[in-house]
Structures are given as structure tokens and as C-alpha cells.
């Protein structure tokens, strides 16, 4: 296993800083929180005048690997989950993030960094549940 310092010196921290820059620009220029589940979910409410910035943000995210590939190869991407489990996971992620008002970006990055107790509780909850789920699937069931 790599030491913690190896991860520190790798691209993880740099990628995190770039994500932080993105949330900063959205907040200080557009006045919005970069909570991705909220941005997608809000689109489904079809409120006039509130759609275009959401579509633009989503388009930017979807286009990012296309632009990236003009300069660099994408990192290795492995999805090893079966189709039926992917559908179950998607349903849970979609419903859960809307019921809980946020995901890794809105609660995890934005909420925790502004010291919101709600977001801290939400983040600890979904990380703990994620730990438990993987433990169950990888070490108990299989």
C-alpha cells in the first residue's frame, strides 16, 4: 500500500484544488453553490429562468472529458458493477441525494467547508454508509 505522503504528492490534492477553484468561481461570480445533485435535480422542477445556468453547468461537466482528451489521455476508468446493480445504485443515489438535499459536492465540499452542521452530519452519514455497503458487498456477501 502506498504511504499517505505518496497520495499527497500525487494528483489527488491538485485535483481537489481545481474542484475548489470551480466552486469558488460559481459562488463568487454567479452566487450559486456547486452542489451537483441539486443542480441536476433543480432542472427536473422546470422553473422558468432557472434552467439555463443548470443546463450550461451540466454541459460543461459532460464536455470536460472531451476537452481533456484534446490534450491528454483520460485516466483509466473501470466500471465493474453489473447493469442491474448500476440501476439500483443510480436510483438510490438520485432519490437519496434529493431527499438529503446534497451529495459529495454540495454537502461534502461546499457544506463542510462553510461549517454547516447539517452538511457535516450528512457527509459523515454517507461516507459511513458507503464504508458499510462496500464492506458488506466485498467481505461478507462475496
Amino acid at each position: 500500500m502506498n504511504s499517505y505522503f505518496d497520495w499527497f504528492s500525487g494528483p489527488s490534492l491538485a485535483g481537489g484544488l481545481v474542484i475548489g477553484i470551480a466552486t469558488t468561481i460559481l459562488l463568487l461570480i454567479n452566487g450559486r453553490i456547486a452542489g451537483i445533485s441539486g443542480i441536476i435535480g433543480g432542472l427536473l422542477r422546470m422553473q422558468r429562468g432557472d434552467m439555463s445556468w443548470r443546463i450550461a453547468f451540466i454541459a460543461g461537466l459532460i464536455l470536460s472529458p472531451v476537452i481533456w482528451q484534446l490534450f491528454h489521455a483520460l485516466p483509466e476508468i473501470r466500471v465493474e458493477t453489473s447493469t442491474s446493480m448500476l440501476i439500483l445504485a443510480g436510483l438510490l443515489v438520485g432519490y437519496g441525494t434529493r431527499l438529503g438535499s446534497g451529495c459529495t459536492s454540495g454537502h461534502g465540499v461546499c457544506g463542510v467547508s462553510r461549517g454547516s452542521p447539517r452538511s457535516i452530519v450528512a457527509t459523515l452519514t454517507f461516507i459511513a454508509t458507503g464504508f458499510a455497503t462496500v464492506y458488506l458487498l466485498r467481505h461478507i456477501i462475496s
Partner: protein
Amino acid sequence: MTIIVSTLVGMIFGFGLILSGMVNPAIVLSFLDIAGNWNPSLLWVMGGAMSVSAIAFAVAKKRKKSYLGIPIQIPITTQIDHRLLIGSFLFGVGWGIAGICPGPALVLVGSGSANAIVFLIAMMTGMLLFEMKHSQK
């Protein structure tokens, strides 16, 4: 102007996810696998993002409006209720199954992954189910 900013921010956010490796569900799952060969890199990503974001929120606190003169919208809810807990619980289960959360799902779709399209359709169906159940409240 806000449209251009939103597009660029979405793109920068995506670059961050790609650079950090978090678009790869296998890396996210290895972070969640504490009993396996644990990979802590997600913590560095979160820490890096939070440290920059914390400065932004400190600046935002002192301003009512953004640099474009748009009111800064920060959630005002403070109640820790069962919806927050159950929602985060369900999200954690889904995240643990596939290692994909909403941001990486969109980047994966852009990378041409058919699996990600399946996930995204299911995710949006889940969101739609929520809207149908709760939007009247």
C-alpha cells in the same frame, strides 16, 4: 454571462474530477473499502477542494452579492431531520454499490461510458421519483 461562467465552472469541475482520479469508480470504491487495500486519495481531494472553498465562503459571508451583482444564495436550513439522515443513508448505499456520485456520473457519460448512461438514467429516475413524492410539500 452567467451561462458562460456556469459552462466554464462545469468544465473546470470536471477537469478536477479527472485529474484527481475520482472519475474512476474503482478508485472511489477502494477508498470506501476500509477492510481491503484502502486508498485514502479521496480524502486529499476533499481536503484540497474544501481548503479553497472555505476561503470562498469566508469572502461570500462578507458580501451579499456576487461580483456580477447577483444575490449569493447559501442554504439557510439548519435542522438535522430524518430526511437529511435517510437521504444521506440511501445515497451512501448507492455510492457504495457503484462508486459513482452525481458529478463523476456526468463526466463518465462524456467519456463515452455506456455503463454511466445506464447509471445516469437511473439516477435521474430516482430524482424524478423524489420530485413526484415531495414537490407538493
